């Protein structure tokens, strides 16, 4: 075990803790992973400290678990996989390093949350492509590193977007900057000549940021990240379309995205519409659920600097042809929820209480990636599995997010449950495992394997594991970075 | 000068592979994008025009290094010229000429192909491209009351060509041609037994001397007969008289027309009226030497301007295939009542070769048939029942390939359909 003074020397006494309450906070989360207590929690405030911590961990063979967002955590990735771990809590690294309107890019430290970045970016006239209603404590860097889906698929050219460059301390203690940030020279030297850190690829043949994304802290610790930003529209016109026929809405969605007409665009089932937009709880919740058709597509049209009204009206004309063909109608509100209200909500993090917790106090997410043609059958399969597990399918929230300009769909099942009710939580735990197994058998792709189910997911692709293990051996030869996660 | 004169051209090759495909903007999909039979069949880059030029440049520099493989490459090329058209969309350089020169060089060095040697030996002996041909050249015309142009004054000499004259299955083309000309009231004749091979195919095979020999004999005969216009029904003959004879300054003022051009003119002049319906869906195959290689010769002499550009003084005109004979046969087909005309993907200047050119039908009949099969498949894909061509060599190889593959596609020469229609 690392001696306290060594940690204190690096981060200062105030930033090292082994108080049981502090340790408990990190030893479990809302997911079903086994609780494991860390031995220390340290809160570095800069890159230098992070690097020293990693070097120390290598010397002492100590597992490090990087955490950037605040609680509650949901996926088990920040719960130590083995005993004796040090939690490296980066939530205190809160600098917004810059926001650059001209180049549509921002750079921030890992502790910056959406709530913090959004106003700072807006001041300059830009914004980030964000996930759907993240919890208040969710950090931007955390979300990007997890390859969370974003609500504006039009601007997601690559699944790694909006991440641009990162500074990372690899597991072996070496500092590295990816993409344009790599050099030549320091970041400051690059700024001096007008360079910002935006181009994600390189240096050389690799696109190194892709190795860090999705790695759940197993390759190294990110000390800042830059991201591409989008302009703030000067005019927005959101719509909703409801239907009991998902395929029709998917068809519509794919055309809206293909023609690049819409910014925010996603589909929710009635349960999630209610879980997110019910104002008065629980009265509204039930009312919304009861009145809405099974599915609601939300989309938002936007205009920027030049003739925004004309742009939006040309979109409306073009979209009306699609809706006519499909026999649906774009409207301004459904079931008492207005499109404007949805728009306003999804451009911010979730208000408190976090929408996933509001209904029952806990939520297990099962999410997958798939293609258009498989989506409905996977949802059908999930309904069957829920039925079988005794979980009422009507209680299950579903969020469908087209990703990467329409090349695929993120489909998320939100299993709300009461954590105090052990039979309910056991049922959900079993359902979650059965779902991953059953959905995988039907062709679902689990690109972000967390917690208990990771092994089952990775076992399907031995060749990829082979390569990943080789890479892991290079960047974190002593396996100090978050051991026990993914396939490491 | 031989190969040497194309050193600069060969060195210009940038290895872009355009010569393997039809011009990029004409590519209509995954299928029928390839244009060079040789690389399509043999796959090693050496079989493409670019590969051939690079080999040429290297061997010009380091000496000819003959191997069996080299000769396999050299003789498995139809000299169809498709490569040149595709290359010259963007590049200013000769492509087919150096390829042909390379073959000539091989022949000079006695690295010949036995099958072609046999053909040429026969040419020297009999004046025809058809070794073992029996009977007299003009025998097909017996009883048809066709004038002998060597004896009577005619306006038009119909040069029948070796294959049509001797091949029992193809003599029908000569008869049809004669019938059409007679019907249109043309004062024409044939040279009968005095007709000789045009020599064009010998040139493709790499035997320029033998070609010239034929050319001179033919032109002497023509001069003597006082003929001003020659009509051929064979694309090889057309290209020989029109392009090669001109290139070697033998053509003089002789007017050379392919039968499809002539029929087109006769129809336009109202002398020929296709009135009978020929109900069929047909597509047209551009014979290489009527199409892109039928483009008139452009005499040019000049010097490279020193400097960074491959440019000449005076500017060098390239024959890029734009001026071949493309529309007249199409116009004729479109004038036939009842005929439903469809186009294939690879047409006109970027047409796919039938497979018979460059001596390949003799040196490697399997490859020739393979090439023909590709074309047949393309023709069938248009929904056509018939593939119409304007050269007996095409008809021959198509029919051979069809016989083997069992396709139900019918092959016609354009004169056969016109004959049906009048």
């Amino acid at each position: 075990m690392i001696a306290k003074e060594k940690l204190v020397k690096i981060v200062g006494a105030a930033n090292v803790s082994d108080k049981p309450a502090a340790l408990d906070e990190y030893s479990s989360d809302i997911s079903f992973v086994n609780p494991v207590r860390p031995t220390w929690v340290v809160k570095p405030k800069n890159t230098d400290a992070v690097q020293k911590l990693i070097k120390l961990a290598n010397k002492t063979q100590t597992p490090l678990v990087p955490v950037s967002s605040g609680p509650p955590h949901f996926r088990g990735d920040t719960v130590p996989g083995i005993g004796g771990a040090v939690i490296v809590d980066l939530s205190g690294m809160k600098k917004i390093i810059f926001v650059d309107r001209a180049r549509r890019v921002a750079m921030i430290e890992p502790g910056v949350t959406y709530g913090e970045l959004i106003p700072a970016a807006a001041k300059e006239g830009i914004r980030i492509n964000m996930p759907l209603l993240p919890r208040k404590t969710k950090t931007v860097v955390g979300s990007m590193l997890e390859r969370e889906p974003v609500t504006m698929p039009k601007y997601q050219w690559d699944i790694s977007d909006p991440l641009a460059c990162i500074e990372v301390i690899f597991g072996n203690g070496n500092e590295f900057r990816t993409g344009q940030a790599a050099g030549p020279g320091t970041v400051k030297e690059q700024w001096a000549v007008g360079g910002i850190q935006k181009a994600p690829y390189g240096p050389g043949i690799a696109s190194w940021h892709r190795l860090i994304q999705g790695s759940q802290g197993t390759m190294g610790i990110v000390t800042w990240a830059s991201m591409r930003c989008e302009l703030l529209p000067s005019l927005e016109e959101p719509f909703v379309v409801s239907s009991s026929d998902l395929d029709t809405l998917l068809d519509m969605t794919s055309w809206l995205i293909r023609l690049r007409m819409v910014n925010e665009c996603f589909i929710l089932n009635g349960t999630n519409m209610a879980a997110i937009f019910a104002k008065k709880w629980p009265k509204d919740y039930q009312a919304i659920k009861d009145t809405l058709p099974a599915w609601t597509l939300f989309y938002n049209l936007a205009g920027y600097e030049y003739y925004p009204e004309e742009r939006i009206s040309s979109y409306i004309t073009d979209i009306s042809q699609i809706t006519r063909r499909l026999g649906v109608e774009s409207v301004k509100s459904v079931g008492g929820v207005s499109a404007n209200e949805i728009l306003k909500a999804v451009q911010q993090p979730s208000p408190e209480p976090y929408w996933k917790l509001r209904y029952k106090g806990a939520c297990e997410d099962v999410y997958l990636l798939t293609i258009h043609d498989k989506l409905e059958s996977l949802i059908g399969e999930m309904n069957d599995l829920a039925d079988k597990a005794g979980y009422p399918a009507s209680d299950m929230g579903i969020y469908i997010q087209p990703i990467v300009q329409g090349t695929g769909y993120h489909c998320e099942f939100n299993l709300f449950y009461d954590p105090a009710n052990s039979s309910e939580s056991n049922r959900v735990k079993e359902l979650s495992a059965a779902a991953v197994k059953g959905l995988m058998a039907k062709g679902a792709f689990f690109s972000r394997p967390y917690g208990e189910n990771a092994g089952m997911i990775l076992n399907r692709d031995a060749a990829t594991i082979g390569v990943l293990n080789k890479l892991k051996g290079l960047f974190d030869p002593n396996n100090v970075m978050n051991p026990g996660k993914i396939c490491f | 000068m031989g190969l040497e004169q194309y050193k600069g051209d060969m060195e210009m090759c940038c290895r872009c592979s355009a010569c393997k495909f039809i011009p990029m903007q004409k590519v209509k999909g995954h299928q029928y994008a390839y244009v060079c039979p040789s690389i399509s069949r043999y796959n090693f880059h050496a079989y493409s025009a670019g590969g051939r030029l690079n080999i040429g440049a290297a061997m010009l520099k380091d000496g000819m290094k003959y191997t069996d493989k080299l000769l396999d490459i050299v003789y498995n090329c139809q000299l169809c010229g498709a490569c040149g058209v595709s290359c010259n969309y963007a590049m200013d350089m000769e492509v087919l000429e150096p390829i042909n020169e390379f073959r000539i060089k091989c022949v000079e060095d006695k690295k010949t192909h036995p099958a072609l040697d046999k053909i040429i030996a026969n040419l020297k002996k009999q004046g025809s491209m058809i070794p073992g041909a029996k009977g007299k050249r003009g025998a097909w015309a017996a009883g048809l009351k066709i004038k002998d142009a060597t004896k009577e004054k005619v306006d038009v000499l119909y040069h029948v060509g070796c294959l049509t004259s001797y091949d029992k299955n193809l003599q029908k083309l000569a008869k049809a041609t004669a019938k059409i000309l007679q019907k249109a009231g043309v004062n024409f004749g044939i040279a009968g037994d005095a007709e000789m091979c045009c020599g064009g195919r010998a040139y493709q095979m790499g035997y320029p001397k033998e070609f010239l020999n034929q050319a001179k004999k033919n032109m002497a005969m023509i001069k003597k007969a006082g003929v001003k216009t020659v009509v051929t029904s064979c694309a090889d003959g057309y290209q020989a008289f029109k392009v090669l004879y001109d290139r070697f300054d033998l053509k003089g003022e002789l007017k050379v027309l392919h039968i499809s051009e002539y029929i087109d003119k006769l129809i336009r002049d109202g002398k020929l009226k296709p009135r009978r319906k020929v109900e069929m869906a047909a597509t047209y195959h551009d014979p290489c030497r009527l199409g892109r290689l039928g483009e008139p010769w452009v005499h040019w002499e000049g010097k490279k301007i020193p400097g960074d550009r491959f440019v000449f003084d005076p500017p060098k005109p390239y024959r890029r295939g734009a001026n071949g004979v493309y529309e007249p046969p199409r116009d004729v087909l479109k004038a036939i009542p009842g005929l439903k005309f469809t186009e294939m993907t690879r047409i006109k200047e970027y047409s796919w070769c039938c497979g018979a050119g460059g001596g390949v039908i003799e040196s490697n009949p399997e490859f020739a048939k393979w090439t023909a099969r590709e074309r047949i498949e393309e023709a069938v894909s248009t929904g056509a029942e018939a593939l119409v061509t304007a050269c007996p060599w095409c008809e021959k190889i198509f029919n051979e390939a069809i016989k083997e593959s069992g396709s139900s596609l019918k092959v016609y020469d354009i004169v056969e359909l016109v004959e049906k229609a009048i």
Partner: protein
Amino acid sequence: MALKKDVYKEFESVVGEENICDDPAIMPAYYSNKFAAVILPGNTAEVQAVVKLCNKHKLVFRPICTGWSGMFPPDIILMDLRRMNHIIEINEKNMYAVVEPYVISSQLQAELFKRGLNFCIKGAGTNCTAMLRGHGHMDQTTSGDDRNHLAIEWVTPEGDIVRSGALGSSDEWFCGDGPGPSIRSILTSAVPPGVTPGVFTKAAVKLYHWPGPSEFPIAGHSPKYVLSEIPANMMARYYSFPSVEKMWQAEIGLGEAEVCYELMGFNAAMVAANITTCNEEDEAMFNRLNKEVQGPGFFVIIAGNSPADFAYKKKVLEKIVEEAGGKSLKTLEDPELEGIIMCQCIRISASIRETFRPGGAFNSIPIMGQRDLTIKWAIGAGEAKKPLIEKGLIVDDGGAFFGWGVEQGHLGKTEIFCKYSPSNPTAKAAVETWQREQNRRAFEERYFASTMGPQDEIGPALCNYSQWWSKVVKALDPNGVSPEGGSLV
């Protein structure tokens, strides 16, 4: 170095007699190198077997698609993939296509047009493979480089078949990342050049909506194909500006307004090359256009999804150009030339006429990334060309550079080259000095580093990436049989 007979036989038993050759006669056809053998595998299994044999016998190999731009060590096994030429899938709903190495861009694009789709065509031309990454004319709309790859089937240097992302787990091509960290991290990125060791045997590429016709209405004969009409809701224009700053103002404005299908920062010389059919015409046209432009400029294609969309885009385009003092090149407003260059940029994707036709040599500095930054550097690099122009050492292009915005101006490419006569040693030396100095300036002033430059200096200045990369390569290729591929600019 020839293969031993028994080794040759082993390879032959994989691909068949017809598909392997070590005859010296074929070698000069490929490159100036002599290879141990050229092998034509017909499918992934054969590629894998060949790679395994290479490992067994410690023979170095490299694959080619069309082989235009590869650079190869001598004596290697050259794997020519031209027999692998199938389009495996075009998924319209999920906007991706899966291709084998020898599907060229022109083929895939023609198939896609029929379905109202398009994809990123490399500026090299549609004569190149559709499968490998690259960037080109339509990057504004179709992005560029590795960002267009989804799942990839990759035969590793050791001969394992790795199928990235969803492909490995669920046999779907739509996603190349995960589970966990993405294997795409090591499967190619962007310029500067280089290709990951091993062999890509299939790849899924992203598709984009194509608002144009299912087939261009082409008339005429090569080399002068024209459009019989400009397709509905499409327009092509060239605009020149009073200064680079003004040009950039318009370029980024158009990117942000999301109105251009293509925005290509061609200079007058490149426009001239593309619309002319021979060198002489090219030179005359260049002289004409050079007089007509007021300064640097770019070429734009707009394409509306509907008449209303087109009208909107045109209005915004004209407004932004006007605000920046841009002037439309009258010559290109002639519908015939407009059609030629539209087709040239979309269907041919330019390149050969503007690079190789003149017949000289050119030395180039290309860079992907932050366009405003690289433009700033390129102004200096262009100024540095001027003394060479004055001395008559290089072709006069007014000190021009070129480039374009990628992803509606989020990213970009800038390139500058000097055309000169390779037979003039003074010119060659001067150009090489220019190239070295401008690369050095870029490096020292911290604009960018050409990773084609000296690694001992550049590697450390770029976070020692080259050491990391060597380690990755060593881990993947313990026998050292699969050197990384050269040049994929």
